[in-house]
């Protein structure tokens, strides 16, 4: 739900846009005049302004430039919506410092999708510059890697520069789910201490076809894995400084890598399946995290239904753990196939229940 200002001189279209956006759950303010739009933007401070270009008196590019000049509205996201639909028009819109551009006619789905993308992008820009999320479970098989991969793709799609880190000691699944061929891994990076600097980061990262960057796990465990957490901390710190969002798929053991990932995390997603064994493991994990002085306030519990049979209910889980679940992900029969094909649901089936739930909590 966002406050959106729409400026368009076509009053019929204006009312249709209002209806569409309100159906999308937004609070919509409309005006048919550029100058009035500037006043409304200043007074009402919308999160997003949708601006037509061809308006008499003050055209959309002028409105956009003036929005940027006013300190009150300078950070308002601006979407240019115009019938001038040529590449030169897109360039003109971006030159006027609009955030994005859509050509008319536009379908409701297309409009809402673009609005959501822009609002997410704005939220990212407004939020902390860097944010590292560590996902873990001390019990394997609860779908930590699947959640990490799909979460990283969602965040990346929203416009934030994102890196997925697979900290498994060997044969991690996260990068395999993206069908990437890991020629270099974090083990190679740690074996080259001189490269633990910002300039060397790209040498060790893979790039998925979506543009998502990833740091892979080694295939074979190496003897020097039993090192102190400091090199891991330095490596993750470099990534956090470089990317807006870092998603870490931590191993199901409290080794040096996992401890570093927990220590540096801004948020920890503790993943569990809605079953008794997983619940017991989660209780033990919470105790272990407390012993490691990990702040309780940055831990979020995420339940993931990995089997089709019904599991423990959310109230039962919350009662047993004496804390609320931050999210409950549904069982999705498409997930195993997506895993096998190397096409995560967020890409192959973005409308699937699992992908939709990840988008909801991202």
């Amino acid at each position, binding site marked *: 739900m966002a406050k959106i200002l729409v400026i368009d001189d*076509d009053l019929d*279209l204006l009312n249709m846009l209002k209806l569409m956006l309100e159906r999308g759950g937004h609070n919509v303010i409309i005006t048919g005049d550029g100058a009035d739009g500037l006043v409304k933007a200043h007074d009402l401070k919308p999160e997003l302004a949708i601006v037509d270009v*061809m308006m008499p008196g003050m055209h959309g*590019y002028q409105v956009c430039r003036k929005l940027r000049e006013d300190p009150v509205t300078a950070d308002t996201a601006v979407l240019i919506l115009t*019938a*001038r*639909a*040529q590449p*030169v028009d897109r360039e003109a819109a971006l030159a006027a410092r609009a955030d994005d551009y859509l050509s*008319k006619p536009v379908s409701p789905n297309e409009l809402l999708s673009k609005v959501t993308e822009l609002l997410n992008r704005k939220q990212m820009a407004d939020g902390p510059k860097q944010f590292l999320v560590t996902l873990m479970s001390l019990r394997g098989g609860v779908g930590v890697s699947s959640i990490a991969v799909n979460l990283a793709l969602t965040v990346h799609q929203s416009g934030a520069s994102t890196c997925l880190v697979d900290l498994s000691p060997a044969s991690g699944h996260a990068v395999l789910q993206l069908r990437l061929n890991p020629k270099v891994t974090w083990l190679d990076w740690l074996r080259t201490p001189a490269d633990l600097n910002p300039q060397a980061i790209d040498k060790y990262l893979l790039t998925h076809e979506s543009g998502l960057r990833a740091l892979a796990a080694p295939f074979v465990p190496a003897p020097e894995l039993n090192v102190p957490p400091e090199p891991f901390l330095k490596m993750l710190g470099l990534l956090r400084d470089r990317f807006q969002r870092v998603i870490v798929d931590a191993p199901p053991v409290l080794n040096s890598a996992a401890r570093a990932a927990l220590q540096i995390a801004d948020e920890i997603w503790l993943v569990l399946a809605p079953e008794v064994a997983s619940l017991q493991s989660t209780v033990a994990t919470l105790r272990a995290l407390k012993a490691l002085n990990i702040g309780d306030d940055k831990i979020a519990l995420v339940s993931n239904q990995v089997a089709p049979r019904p599991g423990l209910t959310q109230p039962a889980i919350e009662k047993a753990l004496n804390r609320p679940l931050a999210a409950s992900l549904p069982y999705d029969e498409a997930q195993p196939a997506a895993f096998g094909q190397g096409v995560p649901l967020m890409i192959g089936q973005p409308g699937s229940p699992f992908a939709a739930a990840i988008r909801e909590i991202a």
Partner: protein
Amino acid sequence: MSHVQVGSRRLAVDFFSYTHRISTQFAIRGGRPLMDTLNDHTLSYIELDIAYVSRIDEPGELIADYTISILRKENISFCLVAAQIEMAVKAAPPAQYFARRSRQVFCTVPSFEITGVIDVPGNVDLHKMMAIGVERFMPIYKATATISLLQSVAFSGDLILVNKEAIEVFCIGEAAAATTTPQGSG
């Protein structure tokens, strides 16, 4: 609702002269397609509700807008319709449609090179095609107009209506892979 499109009561059209791009939301009155209005010999001008003016050397930049304006038809090199061409040209009757073939076309008008697909009879007669006759403006489908001396600037759309009188060079190529013209319904 996803199939419903908004902004379709008026037709977005870009008119190009030798030196300027005039963008407008052309009001389709009485269901009369744009091409019929352009080819109406009783009027030498076309009236626009609001005109947004850009120069050809900076075609994205709006230099002025006017609420009342008319264009002299003979000085329009071509006009571009990016989408919704059913509001710009009449659908061909089925008999005529099947008797015609789609061919690649290349032509030049002052400042521009235009490429696209044109519907022609089986036996092409370029002299006949270039004759002004009843129709001054000729439809070119899936068309792109590139500024001859500024090849990075191109305008593309489902339809270009080119002024035959402005054409300098006109070439027809091989048969196009698939026709893009609107079919008759009847």
